[in-house]
């Protein structure tokens, strides 16, 4: 009888401590995995299905995501694009903080799938092929946007988005916006800074581009840390000066 009473008392005390403690741990865990302690309503839409799934998987989330990615590589080789998208979605749902899944998932959709439907689809009109190709590009953009929402402080996904707008849509203005965002994040590659300028030039915004190159050249920290970057910036600034002079001279003068 004494043992039973002690057991009940022990469980009661432990349960009383355990609940708030576990809630605190759970909150910290979600912050590490999702970047914030997300409300359930968001998770229901985007991640809760995942939590239940991964919970059922018994704690082998990373491993499952890894094997899903291996299956995705097979689906990619067989050009099964819908399967690629499903598997990529599943992988990013399981591990939303792994940038590799977001960036490569988006690459498969916006580059591989989009090019493939144009190149290999038979019995389809050109208009249809164009439409489908654009849909895959949109799917890639959507994946990167979701990835950025979960990982707003990492340069990689902004960088990929800038590449996507540049290479797939030739929207250099948006590309410049994303290169700029990427360059403002910690550990961003130094060339993202330069690509803001290149993209602005391609967009025809020479004035803004020139100003950007001047700002880059005026940065004080790059002499020691980034000598190659400095060399390229100064070289390009010289080219821009010539270009700006040409533009000024070609402008119609009003007497």
């Amino acid at each position: 009888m004494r043992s039973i009473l002690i057991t009940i008392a022990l469980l009661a005390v432990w349960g009383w401590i355990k609940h708030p403690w576990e809630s605190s741990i759970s909150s910290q865990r979600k912050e590490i995995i999702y970047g914030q302690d997300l409300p359930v309503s968001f998770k229901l839409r985007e991640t809760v299905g995942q939590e239940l799934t991964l919970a059922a998987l018994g704690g082998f989330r990373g491993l499952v995501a890894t094997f899903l990615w291996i299956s995705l590589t097979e689906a990619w080789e067989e050009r099964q694009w819908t399967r690629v998208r499903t598997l990529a979605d599943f992988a990013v749902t399981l591990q939303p903080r792994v940038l590799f899944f977001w960036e490569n998932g988006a690459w498969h959709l916006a580059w591989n799938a989009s090019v493939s439907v144009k190149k290999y689809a038979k019995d389809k009109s050109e208009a249809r092929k164009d439409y489908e190709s654009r849909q895959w590009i949109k799917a890639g953009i959507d994946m990167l946007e979701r990835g950025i929402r979960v990982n707003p402080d990492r340069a990689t996904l902004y960088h990929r988005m800038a590449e996507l707008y540049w290479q797939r849509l030739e929207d250099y203005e948006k590309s410049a916006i994303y290169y700029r965002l990427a360059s403002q994040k910690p550990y961003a590659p130094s060339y993202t800074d330069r690509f803001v300028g290149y993209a602005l030039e391609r967009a025809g915004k020479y004035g803004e581009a020139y100003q950007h190159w001047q700002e880059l050249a005026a940065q004080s920290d790059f002499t020691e840390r980034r000598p190659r970057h400095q060399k390229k910036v100064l070289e390009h600034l010289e080219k821009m000066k010539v270009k700006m002079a040409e533009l000024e001279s070609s402008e119609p003068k009003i007497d």
Partner: protein
Amino acid sequence: MKQIYWRIYAIAKNTLIESLRQRVLLVLLLFGLVLTGASFYFTNFTFQEEFKFLKDIGSAAISVTGLLIAMIGAAQLIPAEIERRTIYTVLSKPVRRVEFLLGKYLGLLGLLTLMVALMSIIFGGVLWLKEVVEIQEIQMQSQGGELSEGQQRMLEQVYEQSRDLGMFQALLLIWLKLALVAGIAVLFSTMATSTVFIVFSTLVVYFIGHLQATAKEVWIQEGTGGVFEKFVLVLVSWFVPDFQAYSIIDEILAGTNVEWTYIFEITGYSIIYLLVILALGGLVFQEREL
């Protein structure tokens, strides 16, 4: 007091030696070692992020092998002693039942520690081998010349991933999780005689432990569950540990920085949980008719 420690130590040592003689556990350990070593070749199925895949497979090998050893080992601790009647010989000496139970558990924990340590060494070796291969590839790309900005970044990434100190955090969490699973199995072994029942019950607790955090959030915080669901959930979560707390292992392996304060908090949680479980086990075992 000193004698108590000696008695527990003697039982623990004996349990460890006995466990090492068991072929089933040794085969499992061998399987785990081979799987960890073979993880190097699994990376051939992917063309990027080999380190992530390597770490996922290696850590899963440690977890799965450890889980099997913890459950099977713990399930045999007391039922086997009763079946062989050796428990009567031990308990007829001045050894308390709680000391016996604690010694048995610590012996099993010793085996798990040995297993995790061995597999971690193999795992470390595989990571080192991968690092060497990757560095050679980068150097071949540069053809012995100066590395480009991109190659320099690749080299930094290789070092960052292969010499990631977060691996120690992940291994510590795996070990703590296994220790807790073994504790739960030991608790069941104080009540049951069937090995299958103990393994099955531990597995059920293991899966519920992974589900309960989400269920609690959806049913209690969101108010979507009925009164009955809430009652059952509260009752379940009263006993079952939140195994989701350890799921951070995957994030650590993927390169996410996790503060040591969080790891220490999980360590504290696991130790206190273990003490409660072993105290409960001691109370149950004390009352058990042998």
